[in-house]
Each structure stands twice: as C-alpha cells, then as structure tokens.
C-alpha cells in the first residue's frame, strides 16, 4: 500500500532523508522509531507531498505521490502530533467538514456513527472541539480516517501527551484499523507503544533506515536494547 523507493530529502546542506526504501502492506502497522531529526516526520511529509522529494519516489496504492499528490492524499488519513480541529465547531461538524474536503457528504447520523466507532462517547459529539482532550481529538482523527475510507493512516507522535489509559486505547484502535486492511505508518519515540501497536518497527537515524524488526519476535527489553545500540553507534 505504501512504498518508498530511494526516497531522499535534502534541506540545503542537511540530508533529512537518505535513500529510504520501505514497503507497508495493507493491514500492517509499521512504526518508525528514532530520535528527533531522524527523518520520521520528513518521511510522512513526503508521503503526503507536503514537501517535494529531492530524489526517489513515494507511492500510495501504486500511485506516485509527486505526480498525483491530491489523489494520494485522498487515500491517506493523517493525524499530526498536535492534532487540532476548528475549536468552535463540534466534533460532528468538524468531521462533516473534513470529510467534505475529502469528497464525502454524510448525514449527521452517519458522522456520529463514525465518531462512535472511533471510540468517542456520544455526549461529546455535539460539544465544541475546543473542550476536547488530545485523546478525544485523536479519536475524531480516526473517525475521519474511517469516514474518508482511507487506505493508509499516517500518525506523527500520536501518543505523546496521552495518559497510559488513552495511549492503550489508541494502540487497540490502531490494531483494529489494521484488521480492517488499513496500512498504518506511525512515527514515534515511544518504544513500548511501538511494540504494542506495530507489526514491524523501523529504526531510523540521521535520515537512514538502520534496521527493520518484526515486533512479534521481540520482547520489550530486546527492542529497547537494539534501539539504544543503534542510537549509540
């Protein structure tokens, strides 16, 4: 579903992403691990065509992103680290508006159903988003992924600032989305959550993908050790 071929991004003298090769299958949750500046967010931005690649190609469902950026974005749902909506509008209204931007026109009842599926309690649907916690806003983001029938989900540090309970709920939700066939690419610092949520993790450093690991074959402490080794070398 998601594929990067020698994907490269340079900002002046700084090489932010260095020839990334990556494939994320349908239903797979892939976590990008790495320190700040490792190239995780740049990778996501290149898949969304928020920035032009310096070299290589990114593909979403076989479509080259640089050639069809709008088409690629319609297939992707994106939840940034600071997920924000229009604060004066309700959860339902925000979902309706952003779904409409993606080309979908839903009745209020359908929108509420998506919010419910994403785990947002009914009483919150009609409240202004300005009163929501980050976890609640993320659920609206997930509802948006469901409503636009996204084939891929991109998450940038989704669990930072979430309490353990909300973080756990979020992991379960990602797995559920994976089970529905959505490819998930998540950038995170959170090793524990990457192990819990992801099928595979990729450790990045200075714009390069150093290693890719299968989470089922690793324990938490092993993953931590490998990660620290990569950061140290």
């Amino acid at each position, binding site marked *: 579903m998601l594929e990067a071929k020698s994907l490269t991004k340079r900002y002046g003298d700084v090489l932010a992403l260095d020839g990334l090769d990556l494939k994320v299958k349908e239903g797979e949750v892939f976590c990008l691990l790495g320190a700040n500046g490792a190239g995780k967010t740049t990778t996501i931005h290149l898949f969304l065509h928020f920035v032009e690649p310096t070299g290589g190609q990114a593909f979403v469902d076989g479509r080259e992103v640089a050639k069809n950026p709008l088409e690629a974005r319609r297939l992707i749902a994106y939840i940034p680290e600071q997920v924000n*909506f229009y604060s004066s509008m309700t959860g339902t209204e925000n979902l309706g508006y952003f779904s*409409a931007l993606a080309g979908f026109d839903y009745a209020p009842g359908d929108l509420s159903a998506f919010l419910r599926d994403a785990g947002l309690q009914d009483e919150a649907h009609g409240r202004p988003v300005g009163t929501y916690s980050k976890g609640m806003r993320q659920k609206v983001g997930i509802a948006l992924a469901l409503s636009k029938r996204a084939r891929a989900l991109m998450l940038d540090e989704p669990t930072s600032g979430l309490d353990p309970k909300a973080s756990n709920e979020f992991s379960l939700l990602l797995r559920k989305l994976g089970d529905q066939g959505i490819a998930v690419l998540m950038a995170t610092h959170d090793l524990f959550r990457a192990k819990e949520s992801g099928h595979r993790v990729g450790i990045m450093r200075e714009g390069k993908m150093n290693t890719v690991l299968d989470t089922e074959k690793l324990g938490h402490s092993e993953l931590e050790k490998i990660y620290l080794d990569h950061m140290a070398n």
Partner: protein
Amino acid sequence: MPVILRVIAAREGESLRRDGRARVLGWVFLILTLASAFAGGRYALRLGQERSAAWADNRRQFLEQGIKNPHSAAHYGVYAFKPAQALAVFDRGIEPWVGATVWLEAHKQNDFKYRPAMDAGVMQRFGELSPAFILQVIAPLLIIFLSYASFSGERESRVLKLALSQGVSPEILAWGKWMGFLRALLVWTILPWTAAIAASLFLAEPGTRMDVLLRLGWLSLAYAFYIAFWIAVVLGVSARMTKPRNTLLALLGIWLAACVLVPRFAVALSKAVSPTPLAAEFSDQISKETQRPDSMKLDKANALRLYGAKTIEELPVSFSGIRLIEGERHGDQIFDRRFSELFGILERQRDLHLVTGLASPLQPLRLASMALAGTDLSVHRDFAFKAEQYRRAFIRRLNDDVLRNAKRQEKWDSDYRGGPDLWASMPAFEYPSFGVDHAIGQAWRSLAMLSAWLMAGLWFMRNSARRLNVD
C-alpha cells in the same frame, strides 16, 4: 459552483458567526456605517432645505429690491445654489472643498463661497465619516482583522495540514475562503447599503429616482470589487506568512500605505506637479487684468464707428449700455481663459490622482465613487459653467434694458430706473445635473483600474496558495 467551494465558504461564514471578536467588529462596523448614513442623510436633507430656503429668500429680495438703475440691480446680484445630490448622503465628494454656492454679479465671475472644509477641524482633513469613507478606509481594516489568520493561524494550529491532507487543493481552499469572507462582508454591508439606498431615494427628486438606482448599482459593483480585492490580498499574505502576528503586521503596513500614505502622497504630488493658485492671488490677477485702462471700456470713437453715427446723441442705443455690454464681453474673455486654466489645473490634479491609483486601489475607487455619486469635479465644473452662463445672460438682460432705454448721452445715465416688472422678467437659475451616462463616462477609467486591481489581487491569492507551505 463546485460543492467543495460552497462547503469551505459556509464554514468560514459559520466560523465568523461564532467568533465573539468577529461579532463585536461586525457590530461596530455596522453601527458606524449606519450612523454615518443617518448623519449624511440628515445633513443632506438640512442642506437641501437650507438651500431651497436661501434660494427663495434671495429671489424674493431680488424681486423686492425696489426701483433702481438696472446696473445697480446687476451689482445687487443673485446667488446660485448647486442642488444637493441625492447620493451625497453616501459620498460628499469634493463639495466640502469646492463649495456649492456662488454669487452672481456684474463684471465678475466669482469663486464659490461657504465651503464646509473652511470650518473643518484638522481631523476632518483625514476624511469625512461618510459611508463611502467607512467602506474605503475602515472596511479594509475590518477585513484584515477578520481574516489575517485565515491561513497563517491554521498553519500555526496545524489545522491547515489536516485540511490539505484530505486531498483538497490549496487553490480551492483559498477560493472557498475568499468566497466565504466575501459573502460575510456583503451580508454585513447589506443593512447599511439598504439604508443608504432608502435615504438617497427619499432625497432624490421624483424624476431622478431611476437614475439614482442605476448609480447605486454601479457603486455597489465598485465597492464589491474593492472589498473582494482586499479579501484576496489578506488571504494571499496570510498564505505566505508563517506567523499570524507577522501577517497582521504586514497587512497593517499594506493598509497604511494604501489607505493613508498613497492618498496623502497623491495630494502632495498633484500640488507639486500642477499647483493651484491661491484664491486671493487668482482673484487679484483677474482684477488687475480686467481693470487695465486699455481694456476697461469701448471708447467713444469706436462706438460711433460701430454704429455709423457722428455724435453720441445720434446712436440708436444708449452709450451707457454699449459700454456696459462691451465691458462684460471683455471681462468674459478673461474669465473664460482664467477659469479654464484653473479647471485645467484641477483636472490635471484629478488625472494625477488616477495615476497614483497604480499604487493603491483606494485612488480609483474614490474617483469612481465621487463620479457615480455625482459629487466629482466634472459635475462641479459643469455647475460652475452653467452658473456663469446664467450670470452672463442675467447681466446681459439688465444691460440690454439700459442699452434700449437709457439716455443717449456720453455721461453715465444714473437717472434711469428699472422696476419690479424688469426684475420679474429675469428667469430664476435652475441646474439640471448630469445623468448616469455622464457618471459612467467619468468613472470608467477608475472602474477599469479597480477591476485590474481585483484581478491582480486574485492572481496574488492564487499564486500564494499554490506556494502554500504547511509548516
């Protein structure tokens, strides 16, 4: 219109409706505009009544001046009052500066009297608080405060990333926002605009109401272009700047340049390039020229030759009348030349103002607004011309009476008298103003320039949206 544009525009409108600050700004704008329209209407109504009363009083005084020499009656003179234009409620144009009352008397083409600007304070020189001024200067500020964060604020809050990640193009987003703000602004201006229409129609002469409506239609178009331009510029700048605070500062700078500095510069430039003489200087020059001994009077020999007579007593008309008529004819040539030069200077100044419209859309809007409201220089010049034509005909009638009836003698016949019948035979001055065709003829260059500004603003917005950066 694509559904997506309607969706984006509706969200912008709804967002403004829910924004407390926007509501306060909207109400302030609405109250200011309505108050200025009300004040303008009251002023125009009072002015119209005062001018009518003054005209009737002046006419009565002329008719009741008693028995006297017709040339004394010519010196007694009459006033000509420019009728208040119905759309002066909306835009008073140049009238406060040039006046609307002129005293018509023998030997002299007088300058206009009682200019309201003479009594104005320093602050009034910034601009009259008319509906036109509010739409020209205050509305752009309102647009800036309402929409400066449209892109830069959404960029800062990351909502922009979320919006663009839905697969909507930045250009569509910009067009939708532009339409949303334009619709909101037009809705806000509907009430004051309706009030201005009602006041103008109330003040308009019954036969001119269709003309007033047509003018209002053109004015609506001109102001809609101007508002649409500002929205495009604000969105364009907001799309280019990364921080809302910087966006606001940049836009306030643009507003200051376009709405304050360029108009001030235009005044200074037009005065420097095409200076107007001081009123006293202008009047002195005319007096000196008309009173030159060689040009004062037709001499006796010429008059006799002209009529083929040997003595004054043989002349078929009175020598006093001949001298009066020749004196007027000589003066008229000087007035024609001098006033033509003066209006030429004023028209060059107006053209320079239009040239400075290359630096600010406010300049062509002001010129178009005055022309369409019937308060511009062309109407003033026409009124001055027609008042002067009336003065000449008026004096000529009185002089003709002297020519026909005064004694055939070389000495001025001070004993000859005219009376109420003669005064009553003098027609009163009436001024039929131009129709909308003339106004459009005067305004088309400004309207074309305003359209070009709108196109440039939209191009800038589209171009900025294309280069939209999410971070």
